């Protein structure tokens, strides 16, 4: 980025996003918890989707046949908090393979949904997860469009937004989230984010030693201009094949500048109007 003049810099950094630590320092120290989803281990059994629906008592999405491989769910939504993506990849040499990934809310370290929420319904809970208190959600729908991963949805039934809670209730009782508990291959791992990152990096090294050189981590470290994700992934192909953005953008970056431009336009037009209105008599 070009060097910015000081006032522009101030505006660019106005309204800084909130960072993870919200818990009171008086509280007993808890590590930030997250998911590491290793797609090389995923067998596409959808047990996570089912376990999530059951534990969180989410409504069904209806019976749709999409024709998109074995994926009839499509995407995460207000009623689907785990979604198993199936992508068929056919390479030039005639071989084919499946990409399978259990998608989930990324629990971003600087979550745009949390900044967008006008009621403070979206918060970081004591486990460092982005938690939506849907009882005080007003249904304005701003988080839906703020999320660069398209995770949140607003339910037509109750008019509230809903998303993955990382099984806050289970975590509070010392249990792991339902999806991680049920995963038969340990593709979904749950734990303190720092530990998961170490583990994930070892896993990538291991895979690369075995010749699977395309393995890499998505969201374990910060992106070009987006924070790291507390629910990150090990992928083996371009993120777009998993319906993930290659370089997510923080929608609120430069908000101060955009306010300044708008207000300045208003003041300028008012000043011109004052001239016209004052000219007569």
């Amino acid at each position, binding site marked *: 980025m070009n060097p910015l003049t000081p006032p522009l810099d101030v505006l660019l950094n106005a*309204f800084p*996003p909130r960072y993870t630590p919200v818990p009171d320092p008086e509280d007993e120290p808890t590590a930030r918890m997250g998911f590491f989803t290793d797609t090389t281990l995923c067998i596409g059994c959808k047990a996570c989707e089912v376990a999530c629906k059951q534990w969180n008592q989410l409504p069904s*999405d209806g019976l*749709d046949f*999409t*024709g*998109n491989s074995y994926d009839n769910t*499509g*995407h995460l939504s207000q009623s689907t908090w785990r979604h198993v*993506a199936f992508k*068929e990849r*056919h390479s030039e040499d*005639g071989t084919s393979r499946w990409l399978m990934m259990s998608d989930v809310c990324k629990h971003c370290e600087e979550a*745009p949904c949390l900044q*967008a*929420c*006008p*009621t403070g319904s979206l918060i970081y809970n004591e486990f460092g997860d982005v938690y939506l208190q849907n009882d*005080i959600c*007003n*249904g*304005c*729908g*701003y988080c*839906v469009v*703020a*999320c*660069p991963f*398209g995770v*949140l949805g607003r339910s037509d039934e109750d008019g509230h937004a809903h998303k993955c809670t990382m099984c806050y209730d289970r975590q509070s009782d010392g249990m792991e989230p339902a999806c991680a508990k049920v995963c038969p291959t340990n593709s979904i791992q749950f734990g303190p984010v720092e530990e998961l990152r170490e583990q994930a990096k070892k896993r990538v090294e291991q895979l690369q030693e075995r010749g699977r*050189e*395309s393995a890499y981590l998505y969201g374990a470290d910060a992106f*070009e201009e987006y924070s790291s994700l507390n629910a990150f992934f090990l992928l083996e192909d*371009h993120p*777009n094949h*998993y*319906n993930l*953005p*290659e*370089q*997510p*953008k923080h*929608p*609120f970056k430069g908000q101060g*500048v*955009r*306010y300044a*431009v*708008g*207000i300045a*336009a208003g003041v300028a037009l008012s000043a*011109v*109007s*004052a001239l*016209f*209105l*004052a*000219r*007569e*008599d």
Partner: protein
Amino acid sequence: MKRPGLIETGRNSRAIGRRDDRSPQGEDRDAEEAGYYDLSMLKPPVWKWEIASYFFLGGLSAGAYLLSRLAARFGGRSMEGVRSVGTAVAAIAALPCAPLLIKDLGHMSRFHHMLRVVKPESPMSVGTWALTVYSAAVALSAVQEWLGSESLDGAAKRRIAAALERGRPIMVTALDGAGIPAALVMISYTGVLVSCTAIPAWSRQAWLSPLFVASGMSTAAASIQLGLAATREGEEPTAAEAALEKIESVARLAEAVSLGGYLRSAGPLARPLTHGKLAHHTLLAAAALAIPEAIHHLLPGKPSRWKTYLAAGITLAGGMSLRWAVVHAGRESANDPHAARQASGPSHPEQGRLSLRESSADRLLSRSERRL
């Protein structure tokens, strides 16, 4: 979620199994394979006509309020009409704003719940508070206007007016001190609101805010002009109307610059506005920037009331069209998988690419990116 099935569309069947048909549809298949079937990674906005109408009325009302305050401060006797009609327009246009938002939220109480939190980093919260403060200021201004008018008489009113007369300078200063900043936020925040989203057509577009400001000003001037034209005696426009016409011209110029700037900076991401079913809305909004000028300056004949009605009406229709197009473009833009992929691409394609080895996937992707 309803999507076309395998049998109905040839696109899906190519994406799934028939790998051997390399050409002539080979390119097409590559483009599809670059993403996740035909699905977008983003969720479409839940905002519909209520929000488009609110954006229009909120901008118009705030603009009218600003013009009426400016006329009160700087205008002479001949501008009194702008002050009184402007206040009336601002109050009438502000009336449906909160109900429209409540309609979108679904419950009466939810608007109130919005006011439990002040959150300056969220434009939604800023807007709610701006609307609340602004509505109060505009309502009080309207009451003040009514008390000062000659249409109503009576002992009670005279007593209230006399009581208020002593506090009047303080009240006016207090009202303007709260109302003018709130109106400036009201007229501009809607553009900031939509720009602080991940929707490709809106995301981080700095031109949207001045675009809405200029449109708010031009539609406000047009509606005040309508009110003045309806009450004037002769056919010749008054000095106030002439001033409003000039204000409208400047605002329309600013709107044209902003619209051009937006379409230029958004480029292919603004496609929902320029192609498909919203294109005629955008076209009407753009045409409404030029047609009123033509009516006033090119149409033969003397200035008449009907010319004013026509020109102001077109300006208003254009303003509504603009909000309609921009708000509804969000849905189309979010549902377009190509736009979402393009908007989330690396800012520096060479350095930004993730540490992927140059695989066939990359080649396919770069080929499809070129196609975009």
